[in-house]
């Protein structure tokens, strides 16, 4: 019985020393910088891209209407498994809030982002549904613009440190003529211990 006392005591002491889990306020985050991409990198890249995009006037429709934008392929050419929506979603939110661009979820490179756009239309002519609420033909909006891009990672060794470079490259294409009406590259460079892992 007594042999369990030190085990319990040690466990209690170790638990007391553990770093407590806590919430982080993104506006006041003084946490250490990681060699990998964290939420701060996506936020900075999206913020820089959005400010440049809005101030360029490329998404300002002379007709006054909002442009309809489709999200094309955003290639992840890094050593990390990341969801590129971490970048794209912030830009989409910013563009929507600006009142200048609205994103379609009915058109995408690999099919509709929201399959419900088509599923809801399959209810057409079904006797089970009140047809007055079913979407009519010709109501989906075709995109005017397409957002595509790439996230690139390059690693370098500098003496006993390593340098990791991330490049967030974005292009906005006018689908009427295929011309890239806006392009942007935001580099985020980190230098740190060679022992750190950047993937």
């Amino acid at each position, binding site marked *: 019985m007594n042999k369990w006392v030190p085990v319990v005591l040690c466990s209690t002491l170790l638990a007391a020393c553990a770093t407590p889990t806590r919430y982080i306020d993104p506006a006041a985050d003084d946490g250490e910088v990681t060699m990998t991409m964290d939420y701060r990198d996506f936020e900075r890249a999206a913020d820089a891209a959005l400010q440049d995009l*809005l101030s360029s*006037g490329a998404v300002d429709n002379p007709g006054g209407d909002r442009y309809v934008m489709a999200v094309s392929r955003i290639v992840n050419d890094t050593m990390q498994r990341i969801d590129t929506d971490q970048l794209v979603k912030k830009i989409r939110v910013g563009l929507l809030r*600006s009142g200048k661009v609205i994103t379609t979820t009915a058109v995408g490179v690999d099919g509709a982002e929201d399959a419900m756009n088509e599923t809801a239309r399959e209810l057409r002519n079904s006797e089970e549904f009140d047809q007055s609420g079913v979407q009519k033909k010709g109501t989906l909006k075709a995109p005017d613009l397409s957002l595509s891009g790439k996230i690139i990672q390059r690693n370098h060794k500098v003496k006993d440190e390593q340098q990791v470079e991330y490049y967030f490259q974005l292009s906005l294409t006018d689908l009427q003529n295929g011309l890239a009406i806006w392009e942007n590259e935001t580099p985020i460079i980190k230098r740190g211990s060679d022992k750190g892992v950047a993937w």
Partner: protein
Amino acid sequence: MSRMMQLAVLILVTSLLGACAPLQPEREVVQRDDLRVDPEIGGFVTVTELLEKRIDMPGGGDLLKIQFAVQAYQDTLMEWAVTWFDAEGMVVPGVGEGYRPARVLPNQTRFFTATAPHEKVVSYQLHLREDREP
């Protein structure tokens, strides 16, 4: 005479009622500055200019854009952020809330720009603070 008495009583009652009315507390609202530099870096850097301009958009609207210049007297790691406000003084959210890091070398002057996230932005507050990353 009785008319004078009536008037005097009326004034007295009105004064008494007025004295009993709850006092409205005075609000102590500090005017928001366009620029705030934390004292931790205030001795090392100077904001030498802070310009604002509305950029005309093809659709007829315009966006507020600011440009500021920072001069440092020693190697300074700092962070900066801009908060945007509409005509009613309400915050207009941008993409993120985070601060942007910047390094200003001794006797170097760096220029930074920021563009408002919406046409309804009419004012801003630029905040410079020391680098908080360990």
